[in-house]
């Protein structure tokens, strides 16, 4: 296996990483860069918990190869807060009880942020559609939708 040195731009920082061409982005984020906020669920593109932002768009990091995204801007859940200040979507998730076990939360929050960046005043239906690719086993979604709507108001 030929290892290669690649440059990834993660949460605004340039990182040099040695990877094999088979490694998925979620593996490199978690195991090489120790950014374990990104979760790995199904590994097949279906559950959405591994969602990260690639040039601002939500994508599945379990289906994305690390070598594929060189030079593109990656944002993980660790990159949302500014110092001690949480992102409004994170604040809203806490306030509205939109987190239970928390396994879906990184993917949900990043998906919510991407939606609000693109459309600051989404309808409830728009929010539901946006998060339709992330599965939550705990909350029943209602509080997650409320939280994203509240974050839209706060922003």
């Amino acid at each position: 296996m030929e290892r290669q040195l690649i440059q990834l731009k993660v949460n605004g920082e340039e990182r040099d990483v040695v990877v094999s061409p088979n490694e998925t982005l979620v593996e490199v984020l978690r195991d090489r860069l120790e950014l374990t906020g990104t979760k790995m669920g199904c590994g097949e593109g279906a559950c959405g918990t591994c969602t990260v932002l690639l040039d601002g768009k939500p994508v599945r990091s379990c289906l994305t190869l690390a070598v594929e995204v060189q030079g593109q801007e990656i944002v993980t859940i660790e990159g949302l807060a500014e110092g001690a200040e949480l992102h409004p979507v994170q604040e809203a998730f806490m306030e509205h009880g939109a987190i239970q076990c928390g396994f879906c939360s990184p993917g949900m929050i990043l998906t919510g942020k991407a939606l609000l960046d693109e459309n600051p005043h989404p309808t409830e239906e728009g929010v539901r559609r946006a998060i339709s690719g992330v599965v939550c086993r705990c909350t029943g979604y209602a509080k997650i939708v409320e939280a994203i709507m509240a974050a839209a108001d706060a922003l």
Partner: protein
Amino acid sequence: MKWEKYLVPASLDEALKTLAEYEGQARVIAGGTDLVPQLKKKERTVKCLVDVSRLAELKGIHHQDGLMRIGAGVTHQQIAASPLLRQTAAALAEGAAAVGSPQIRYMGTIGGNIVNAQPAADTAIPLLALDAEVEIASKEGVRRQPLEDLYVRPGVSKVDASAEIVVAFRFQTLHGKRGSAFARLAKRRSLSLPILNAAAVAILSKDGALFEDLRLALGPVALTPFRARKAEEALRGQPVDGESVVEALVIASEEAQPRTNPLRGSAEYRREMVKVLLGRALERAVAAAKA
């Protein structure tokens, strides 16, 4: 998942040369949403992946002289969001909007959707109704083939992704008294494969009263995406509403061959649903053509 190299060629030419050097051991990758799971499960093995997702030659949605040309590397998200396609090829925009989830639509491409050759793929059914043609580049040059002739069986197309690259899809845009629509039946609205997909293109007479021509596509009701040609034949020259439409839908449900599938339902149910779904698509296509 074991391959030795991942290459990102700068041009279509370079991509084709790289594939040739590997003599069948390399394979094209676009969004990877089909290929990466297949490689993970070891359903495929390759020595080298050739990334075509950054090739300028595979990008863009262009319209000229009534002909639409969509690059094979265009994502489902881009198709679903295109005002031009919503207006002149609504069935395709609706089909692309139904793929997977937002995250899958940002990565997955129309080229990958077709080469992966599932008989109900959400862009294949509309493209079949639009009578699309495929541009395929290989060492020998570029060839054009009707989309319909591209399919062999589920999961197998005539495009050899270890030597050839799909560059674009082309079809006549629908203007004047023409319209199209797509209808989908699935268990959920997101992340759910279709139980049945239907697409219709209606080309009406000047007064909007008769079908001058029409094309009806369905999947999965056969080993490849299916054109309901007997139903089309029965409706050509007939009024756009009334008995002839009902009869044609019955014919379509008879010529379709859905199979019983534990995930998709029984053959009987799905045969009934052919009438319902195709009826809905046709009705909306006619309404669009009249508008």
